[in-house]
Structures are given as C-alpha cells and as structure tokens.
C-alpha cells in the first residue's frame, strides 16, 4: 500500500491542481451575463450604508473605483469565519461547519508543512506541524460528525440532503476519524506521519502503521475527488460572489464589456414561445414588435 499511496499522493495533487485551473478557466469562459449585482456590495466605497455609484446624479461621467481590500476582507470573513452561517443559520450549524472547514484548511496546511519540513530539512517546525495536525483532525472530526448528526436529526435539513451530501461528509469524517485512531493507536503518530510524507515526496515510501497510511490514503483520494464534487464550492464561490453579485461594471461604448456583449448579441435564439421568432440573432430579435403578427 505504501508505494501505491506515495504515487497516489503525487497524482492527487497533480489532478487537484489541474482540475482547479481547468474548472476556473471553464467558469471564466462562460458568456458574460447581464448585471445582477446585490447590495451592500463590499467593494463599493459607499458600502457602509449599502450605497452605490448610482446614488449620484450624472454618475456615468464621474470616476468610480472599487476598494479591493474590502472585498478581500469580506470574502475572507466568509471563508475563515463563515460569518453568514454564524449570523443567520438558525439550525446551529455554525460551530460544526466552522470546525469542519478549519479541519480541512489545517489538514492541507499540515500536509504542506510536512512537505516543507522534508524538502527544506526544517526540523525546527516540527512542533508547529504537530499542533496543526492535531488540531486539524480533532476539529475536522468534531465538525463533520456534528454536521452529519444535524442533517440526520433536523427534518428541514434532512429533506434537502441527498445521499451524496452524506457521502461527502462521511468522506471527510473518514479522513479525520482515521487520523484520530492513528494518533490514539500509534505513540509515534506525528513522526510516522512525517515519515510517510517524506517517503511520498521522495517517492521512497516507508512502512508506517496501518491507520496512519490509511488516513493519508483517504486524504489523497479526497483531493482527487474534491474538484469533481460540490465541495468545489470554494472556487465556485469566487465566481458567484465576485463575478455575479459584485459585478457592477457599467457598459461604456468601446470597452471590453461592450465588445463582449456586442459579440454575444449575435448569438441565435431557439426559444419556442409564441412571441419569439426562433433562428434570429438577439440583435434581430429586439427589432420585432409582435412575433404573433409576423411583424
């Protein structure tokens, strides 16, 4: 299993990185949509009262800018603190969701620290990586188990949870729970984890206790699976928020938006409603007054 897992680690990281880039490009190459922003818009200088540049007379002629840092802070507070879940979720999901997310972040961070330790021979950071690893598996196990119980126990949540959603949570729980079992059963857990990662990095796998190897194997499988699942929302979220809810770019003649829209207006429609003439481009379609009368 050792050498298989070592190769799998490389494969998992490679697939993960490739898929993130691939899907990012795919999302980015979708057509530019109509504006559909939502206020308060954190990038807006007037965001403290939910305002926008459209509060000004003659706004088209005035300069406008975004405060990027506010956007980054807002996004970060969602990613790292799960602010909206904390404020608004009435089913008490926040502590579990928070722990589960931090379990994943720290698990990844732990893996990176172990790689760094090996590559740069930085034994000095071992105490840090041990703490990160310990917190990751405890928080992750607590969070994912809690979320499973919430979803099973609360009818409003259960009704909307498909088996695949439970599968995802159990997948996560498996990473963290095997980690805890490995820690409990192996007095040299952190050193074995270190040895495992060192073996994977150098492609010279060493034999480590079963539970340690299993935990990393599941984690590797998870990395492979994640970009194909809904858990990919950490990338998608950038688009839902930054590219849709925060997109307030005004269309000015000759701008990049204008060029893109002009080309999209040449797309042809096939809608079958009686007020639409199928086969015409958007530009042609807007000229039609009443398709029912053939005008």
């Amino acid at each position: 299993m050792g050498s298989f897992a070592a190769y799998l680690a490389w494969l998992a990281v490679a697939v993960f990185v490739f898929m993130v880039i691939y899907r990012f490009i795919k999302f980015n190459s979708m057509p530019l949509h109509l504006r559909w922003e939502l206020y308060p818009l954190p990038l807006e200088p007037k965001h403290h009262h939910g305002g926008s540049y459209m509060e000004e007379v003659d706004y088209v002629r005035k300069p406008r800018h975004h405060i990027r840092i506010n956007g980054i802070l807002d996004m970060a507070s969602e990613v790292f603190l799960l602010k909206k879940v904390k404020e608004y979720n009435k089913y008490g999901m926040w502590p579990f969701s928070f722990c589960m997310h931090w379990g994943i972040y720290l698990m990844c961070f732990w893996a990176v620290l172990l790689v760094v330790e090996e590559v740069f021979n930085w034994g000095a950071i071992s105490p840090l990586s041990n703490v990160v690893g310990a917190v990751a598996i405890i928080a992750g196990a607590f969070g994912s188990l809690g979320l499973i119980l919430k979803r099973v126990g609360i009818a409003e949540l259960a009704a909307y949870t498909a088996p695949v959603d439970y599968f995802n949570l159990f997948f996560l729980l498996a990473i963290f729970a095997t980690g805890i079992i490995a820690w409990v059963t192996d007095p040299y857990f952190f050193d074995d984890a270190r040895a495992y990662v060192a073996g994977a990095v150098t492609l010279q796998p060493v034999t480590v206790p079963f539970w340690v190897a299993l935990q990393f194997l599941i984690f590797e499988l998870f990395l492979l699976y994640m970009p194909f699942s809904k858990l990919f929302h950490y990338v998608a979220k950038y688009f839902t928020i930054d590219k849709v809810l925060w997109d307030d770019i005004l269309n000015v003649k000759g701008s990049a938006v204008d060029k893109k829209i002009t080309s999209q207006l040449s797309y042809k429609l096939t809608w079958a409603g009686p007020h639409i003439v199928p086969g015409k481009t958007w530009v042609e379609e807007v000229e039609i007054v009443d398709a029912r009368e053939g005008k």
Partner: protein
Amino acid sequence: MALEVSIRDIARPNDDPLVSLSMRDLIDLPGLDEEPPLEPTPKKFIDKYEMSLDGHCCIGIPKPKSKEEEDFLVRRFLSGLEKLFNSEDSWTFKQALRLSFDYCVKCQTCNEACHAYLASGRKEIYRPTYRSEILRRIWKKYFTPEGKLLGKFVGADVDVNWRTVTRLAELGHRCTLCRRCAQRCPMGVDNALIARELRKLFSQELGIAPIEILEKGCVQHLRVGSSTGMSPSGFKEAVEFLEEDIGDRIGKKIKIPVDKKGAEILLIHNAGEFLSWPENPEAFAILFEAAGISWTLASEAVGYDAVNYGLWNDDVELARVAVRHVKIAKSLGCRKIVVGECGHATKALVVIADRVLAGELSSSEVERECCLPLLWEIIRSGAIKFDPSKNNFPVTLHDPCNMVRAMGVVKPQRLALKAIAPQFREMAPNGVYNYCCGGGSGYAIIQSFNFPQWRNKIGARMKMRQTLEAFKNELDPVKYPFKYLCAPCSNCKGTIRDAITHYGLWDKFRINYGGLVELMVNAMVDIDRPFIEYEDFH
C-alpha cells in the same frame, strides 16, 4: 418530525393542494384585531385550472384534456430547462444560474430572510430553497450523466409529469424576486435568480406567464405603446389632463414638455401613474419646472411607459423594451433618461439592460439614471424652497427592493425625507435589508383568479406589519388623523394600496401612502395650498 410536504410531492398526481393556508399560521399584525378571512378556493377554478399548489393561482393553466396535451407540457418544459444552460439561448444569465444551481450546500441559512416564507407561518413550499431544489433535482435526473447513472444517490429523484410542470409554473410565482435570501447565502447562491429563470423558461419556451405580465404586459406594451393599453394619442390626452389637474391643484399653469428635441432629460414614468396616481407625474412636472430642469416626456409608442415586465420573466421582451427606450431618447437628442418613481423599471433600464445596450446605445451614449438622486439634488441645490412644517405628520419609508437592494440607491430618498418631513421615522429593517412590499416581480399588477388574496395575505403581510410597527405610537386615528407611507415606486404603491384596503388601515388608522415627489411638492413654499389631499385615499 416529517415535513408537511416533501420535494418529490411536486409530482403528486391529484388536485389536492400541496399546502393549505390557514389564518392561524400567518404572522401577527400588531394593533390589528380583525382582518378578512382566507376565502377557500372557488370550485369553478379547481375544476378547470391548475390550483393544486396552494389553492391559489395567478397564471391559470387549464388542466390538459388529453395525453398529447400532457406530453406537450412535459416535453416543452424539459426543452426549456435545457435551453437555460445553452450559451446562445441564455447567455444572459447562464453563468449566474449555473453557479446557483451547482453550489447550494443546503444549509438553509437563506430561508429566514424570506418575507413570504415567514409571513405564511413557514409553509414549506415558500422556502426559498424549495423550488430551487426541485429544479436542481429535475435537471440532474434528465440532463446529467451522474443523475442518469446514480439517480437518487445524487438527488436526481423528482419526476416530471404535467402536474410537476404546472405546479412549478405557479411556484415560480410565489417569490417576489426580492433577493433578500441571496443576501444571506454564504455561497452567493441566488434563489431569486433560479425563480426568475424558471419563469423565463415558461415564458420563452411555452409562452406561459400571468396574462398581465406577458400578453397584456410586454406584448401589448410593444404593440400598442404601453402595458396599460394607452396609445400615443391616449398619452397626449393624459398629458392634457395632467396640465389641467395641476392648474386645479396649485392654481398655476404648467406646460408639460412632450417630444422636446434636445431636452437634457427624457423622463419616463410607469404609465400606470397617469391613470392611477396622476398627482405623481404632476408633482414631477411641478418640481422640474420650478427647478429649471431641461426635460421632456416622449409620445412615441413605448417611450412614455417605463415598465419593463421582461425583467421578471423574459430576456427577449426585456431587451426589446429597453432598446426602444434608448432609441427614443437618442432620436430626441436627450443626454439622459431618468426613470420616474418605479423600481422595477429603473432597475431594468439602468442596471439589467446595461448589457443588452451595446455600442451606440451604451450608457456612455445615453445616460440612464434613477430619479431619487435627482430629487435629492433638487432639494440640496436650494433651487426650490421647502417648508418642512407643511409635512408635519408621521412619515415612514418603504425601500423598493429594485432601487435599493438591487441598485444601491439608499441615501438620497432618506436625505430628502429628513429635509422635508419632520416626523420621518425608519421602518425596521430598512435600506438594503428591507422587506419587499409584497408586490415585487409583477404581483402588484396581477389581479387574475384568486391571486390578490395570496398577495394581500402572504405577499404584503410583512410590509403591513412593518408599517403598523412604524406607526405604533400614532395608530389612534383621532389624535393622528394622517400618516404617510412613502413608497417611491409605482408597483410598490399598487400593492400597498390593495393591502391597506384589504386590512382597512386607512379606515381604522388613517394610514395613507404615496410617492416622494408628492411630499416634496406639498412642502414647496411657493405653493400656497396642500398638494396632498388629506381626506383622500385612492
């Protein structure tokens, strides 16, 4: 505890409504002891039309009479659903919809934001996620490899039969598209967009929509000139009436400019104002005249009616109307279009249509603005003298979702009210966190079947509660014989008018409603009589 209704119940093959509404479940209205009861669904409707969602309907889809008709509905529904994700057919919202479809984590954080869900006593079918999840599961089942291979495991488990289709058509019209839910979603998922695209599917693929929105709305707007049915000559008569009425009200003659070439501003009102609330366009005329603004109305078909009902359900109609508006402004040589007090029309033209207006029609060529900043500018500039003591009665403000949450126009109307209404107080919550009036997304104009009951009892209920709370210390009609709910939006006013009537808030408490411009004119020093008629509710 099992829920009253499940996601898969949407396909239930009988006439029984998925939920039954009950007065006991609805949220309280403080200070109101009595209200009209919920009337049961008339049998004549049940026999003929699809009423099996909640016993209400606004579209009135006749029950299919043959297997062919049933199959037609199913086939067209599925082909429409597929087109929503086709780049050419639906570039307008494809990316946004794709993201909202794929990345909801079912945390249900959004639900408690929804006025309809809350007002109904948390009826399952009004949960923002209910319709989204149904649609998502259908999509998975019929259009994705994982749905075909793994079925229930990935949640691909909702059957499409004609009941699913007709119930979904109605369910798409139990959301006012206020987007309050989207504000709370940690993923940025927008259930309102999903509801809107569901409606688009029906409108663009099947021609199914409430008659007031498509047939008598967009189609008539383009063909006759206005969704009200007003032709260009009817419009000119309406303007003559406004001029006479202004004379009667303020004792001064004002000539309303129509088709004035080279005017700086083309002002476009929701044409419903000319018929229902002429004092609103009159007040604009008085203010613009007194402030020395260069402006005009347009008499060309479509150009005198700002409404754009495509915003709620139809991208093609949205584009057709918006392009007409801008072309008319260009032909008159106007530098910019200002949309009157109508939220959806403002959002449609200023924001959403920005990306169907390319090249010569883009914003740098013809500017497009909300009227509220201009109204505040009139006050701020000192061009007109106002005496706030003329508005010395309790005033509260409703924030139209389309101008506020969807456009970020929050402050100008507040600054204006603070300057001209000494007893102004906010509702709670307000601004971008406001609740919808209950008439969003076309409900204000839908009078078909028993839909007005749904709108009054569920849709507008939260707004009525907020209104009663805002005036809670002044409800006594003797001590406080006039209170004003300021709603600077034509559709909001329509809903509020009906809801105030339904709950008897004028008769019981003397709560009236109206726009912002009426209050401004009422406070003008140069006008020696009240512009607002204190005894009049209409």
